[in-house]
């Protein structure tokens, strides 16, 4: 289950996607939108993706993690469009025979996704908005 969606992320759907009777553990990471940034109140977040590139990259990252840690099933879902404060912008679930591998693979996936996958976040404030990330 590798998806970019505009609706609210359904954690139960991710859990169902990675469930496996041979799994001993599932690690899930959920990225949530924070209500402040550099001391300013964030009212809302908005995400944009280069979907045709982002989806295959997300699939590749999941495949790499599966091979490297020998985990069982992986789900990666990123939400785009407006995301209210406190709601999930990304969710990753990894099932594994043993918990160590589930934790490490899950962490690898979110770290790699944040560094490489072409998705952008805009913070909306009362007095304007700002794309997040290093800029000139």
């Amino acid at each position, binding site marked *: 289950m590798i998806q970019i969606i505009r609706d609210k992320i359904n954690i139960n759907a991710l859990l169902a996607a990675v469930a496996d009777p041979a799994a001993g553990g599932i690690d899930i990471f959920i*990225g949530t939108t924070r209500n402040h940034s550099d001391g300013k109140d964030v009212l809302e977040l908005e*995400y*944009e*993706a*280069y979907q*045709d*590139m*982002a989806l*295959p990259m997300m699939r590749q990252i999941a495949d790499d993690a599966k091979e490297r840690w020998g985990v069982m099933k992986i789900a990666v879902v*990123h939400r785009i469009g407006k995301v209210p404060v406190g709601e999930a*912008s*990304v969710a990753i679930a990894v099932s594994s025979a043993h918990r160590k591998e589930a934790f490490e693979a899950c962490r690898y996936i*979110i770290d790699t*996704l*944040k*560094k*490489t*996958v*072409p*998705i*952008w*976040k*805009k913070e909306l404030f009362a007095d304007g908005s700002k*794309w*997040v*990330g*290093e*800029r*000139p």
Partner: protein
Amino acid sequence: MITISVKLFAGIKDIVGKDEVELSVADASPVAEALASLAENNPLLRPWKNHVRFAVNKIYVQPDHLLKSRDEVAIIPPVSGG
């Protein structure tokens, strides 16, 4: 000359005011020429030169990657997903 499509995102899309443009560049131009060419008419883009990555046909490439006709170029400002 060849024709390429250039996809724009986030801060760069806002500066250009479009999410995609078509450009004519010399055959076998380096992909970095896509940004340079747009910056000729738009000085606001010039400081971005050292802050973007490029993708060709949905794969990251180095700035000196050479373009072919109908390539889909993307100018990728610093990503901030997650």
